[in-house]
């Protein structure tokens, strides 16, 4: 089993390396030249060439890639072309904000989704189950920018309960924390809760059809214990994967939601970086998102391996 886990981790690292190559290749293909962009109206042929040399842009691509990779490995993400600040510092100032948003969303969505999914599976076929199915289907088909925009219009513009913009600087009390986070968390939750509910429900129902569940019923085990004690341990693998996939969807959703709410997170930094052709910032942010995705998926795989008694006790 340990070898399986090690193999999974190694595979994760290899994927990360391939991702870094892809990110570097794609960002190098972006149109425009950072040196020209930076110099603006001062761009003459000599100044551009000089700046390119000082930024290392005149080196061949593979050398630039290796230098960048070496920087990544040692924690040096380079300097922002736009602000001339170290990228690490830029990200460092934004990352806690993004993590807080993601953590708040996960903390709200995962328990809600698991509870709804499990109860829907327990009462499958009932009016409750059908309502949940219908609602999750409708919510999952609405894109998050629409949810976010609609939420702003209703709660911020019409009702004036919450602020349309979310800046973490205003947080001094718990109430303010809710005011700032309510709308972005709501928008993000809508989409991922629906997906997690559907996948949790399917995984549990799959187990409830197993003969050992019938056996448990014939032993006089109550319905709640059947689900939590008998079915759930066997559904952990698929549920962990569903949660990981949904949370990784957050990474994409965060970009849109942070932009709409003007939330100072990493995604906003990346979007601004693209607008300013600030390659080091874009590359570092992209790496960060991909790494987070890989961490989530790998964690889910490892949980699935650990939860399988056949692998745990060969």
């Amino acid at each position, binding site marked *: 089993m340990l070898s399986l886990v090690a193999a999974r981790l190694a595979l994760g690292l290899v994927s990360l390396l391939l991702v870094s190559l892809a990110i570097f290749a794609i960002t190098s293909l972006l149109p425009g030249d950072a040196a020209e962009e930076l110099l603006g109206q001062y761009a003459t042929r000599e100044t551009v060439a000089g700046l390119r040399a000082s930024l290392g842009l005149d080196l061949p691509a593979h050398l630039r890639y290796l230098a960048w990779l070496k920087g990544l490995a040692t924690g040096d993400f380079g300097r922002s072309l736009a602000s001339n600040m170290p990228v690490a510092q830029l990200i460092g100032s934004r990352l806690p904000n993004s993590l807080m948003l993601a953590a708040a969303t996960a903390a709200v969505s995962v328990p809600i989704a698991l509870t709804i999914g499990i109860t829907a599976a327990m009462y499958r076929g009932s009016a409750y189950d059908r309502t949940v199915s219908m609602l999750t289907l409708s919510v999952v088909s609405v894109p998050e920018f629409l949810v976010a925009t609609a939420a702003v219009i209703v709660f911020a513009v019409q009702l004036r309960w919450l602020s349309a913009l979310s800046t973490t600087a205003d947080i001094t009390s718990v109430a303010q924390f809710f005011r700032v986070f309510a709308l972005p968390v709501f928008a993000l939750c809508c989409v991922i809760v629906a997906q997690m509910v559907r996948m949790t429900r399917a995984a549990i129902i799959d187990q409830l059809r197993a003969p*050992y569940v*019938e056996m*448990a019923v*014939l*032993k*006089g085990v109550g319905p709640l*214990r059947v689900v939590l*004690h008998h079915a759930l341990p*066997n559904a952990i693998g698929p549920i962990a994967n569903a949660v990981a996939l949904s949370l990784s969807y957050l990474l994409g959703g965060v970009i849109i939601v942070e932009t709409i709410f003007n939330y100072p997170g990493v995604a906003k930094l990346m979007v601004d970086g693209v607008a300013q052709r600030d390659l080091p910032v874009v590359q570092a942010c992209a790496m960060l998102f991909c790494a987070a995705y890989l961490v989530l998926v790998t964690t889910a795989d490892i949980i699935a391996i650990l939860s399988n008694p056949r692998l745990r*006790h060969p």
Partner: protein
Amino acid sequence: MSAPLLEVRNLEVRARNAAGQEVPIVRDASFTLAKGEVLALIGESGSGKTTIALALLGYAKPGCRIAGGSIRLGETDVLGLSKSALRDFRGRRVSYVAQSAAASFNPSLTIMAQVTEMAMLHGIGSAAEAEKRAIALFRALALPDPTRIGARYPHQVSGGQLQRLMAAMALIAEPELVVLDEPTTALDVTTQIEVLRAFKQVVKGSGVSAVYVSHDLAVVAQMADRILVLRNGEMQEIGPTGEILAAPKHPYTQSLLAAAAPTPRGAAAAPEAPPLLEVRGLTAGYGRIDAQGNPTLPVLRDIDFTIRRGSSLGVIGESGSGKSTLARVIAGLLPAARGEVMLDGAALPPALARRTPAQLRRIQLVFQSADTALNPRASVASILGRPIEFFHGVKGAARDARVKRLLDLVQLPASVADRQPGALSGGQKQRVNLARALAAEPDLILCDEVTSALDTVVGAAILDLMDGLRRELGLSTMFISHDLHTVRSVCDEVMVLYAGERVEAGSRRAIQEAPWHPYTNLLISSVPELRQGWLERRGSVRGPEAAAGARPACAFFARCGLAMPGLCDVTPPPRRTLAKAAEILCHRDEAALMQASIPAGP
């Protein structure tokens, strides 16, 4: 006489069919059971025996409901219990042992947690007391290492052990009634004996009453005091075991008894018939193949045999003996590591992909489970039409005519063609499965346990059909089974496999005569006989578990009653030919084997 422990009156259970109508699947069942008595419910699938058994726990399968009648256990009206009272009732007063222990144990929980769960739920004593009681039951059921087996997970113990562990689970809360639902049907005969013995001991020892559901009269003869015969949800006959076996009144009971004692079919093919399939020095298995041609996990070792044109070879052995692998190797699904498979004198390429369509056409495989082998979304016509198109290039009306002819050949009405497999009975599906193989017009059919999922009577009809086809079409068959009766009744020649080795091979006549290889002897003497008291007289059997660990020179060493330590475990056994013209793989000579060949000795 005191009041009976269990009293069932006019029980009716209804099921919703595909059209949404409710039809009764059990009608007017009434019987009683005294304390300490064992009652057998016997019948074929669809007879309602499991439905009645489950109703005793106040339970009906999804889609079914208990529609009428009454069930009383002691003073309790079972059908009148509330949901929570029913939960308290189940396990504590009536418990259940399911057919497939492997599927009925939760794979994620330890055995001890599941065995003691009932005692904990019903608030009987502390965890420590429950575990102590569980260990005592493990010991009573003759389980190995009773103090530590509970810490294992279900996949870590064998099927026969799991079935006994499930009995321990059923008995932990000291119920008044235990319902055993075909508890040994999925086991090998050699495993079945010890499980039956353990069940019987525990049931008699604890004075618990039992309802034993089975389709196997010989097993029931060992276990039950009385037998209730069921058919299509209706009671046919009820009476003491001895009477039912000796003087069955109802014609249906008589037909069940007749099917349990199989009649030999077919005449042996002429010995001078040319060989169709020759297998020489076949070794196959899984994993990397080393320089000598041995795979990491060998399943078959050095197998030789011949199937003559128009004849039938039976392959018999316990689960894990490599008999299904043999069919896969011949069909090309698993390429052999070493040795050759020759069809009409020409060597076949080991791998499926390298064989020509003509070679593929000549060997067809019929799988054990028609349920999974037939595409549930395709009509019977398209299931049969595809191989006709593929192998013979026949399309349109000509193909439809051939489909009709095939259905006729397997004795199914032409109207079956438009239906999907789900709308057919088990026996009909197996006939379609057979027709699918026949569609290719093969020379050789490999049948892998084709009757083991079927009832005795339905299975016997399939065997008759195959025997007829064999003579009509001049087919050769290889018939794989774990059931000695089946193989003996349909095959001209028999090969016995043990742990991937051919330990005995001979004609059908030879396999019915002593002396045998010790393993063949064990198999023959382990098949329950249709008389009471056979189990008690039958000596103890060393089941497959005894052979765990490193493989000695003779794979059967650890289980063999005639093993000679120092010789058998060190030197590979030689191949010898017995006077009855059978080849065996054994160190013992004919006289010693003859002396040991007392099939049902104590």
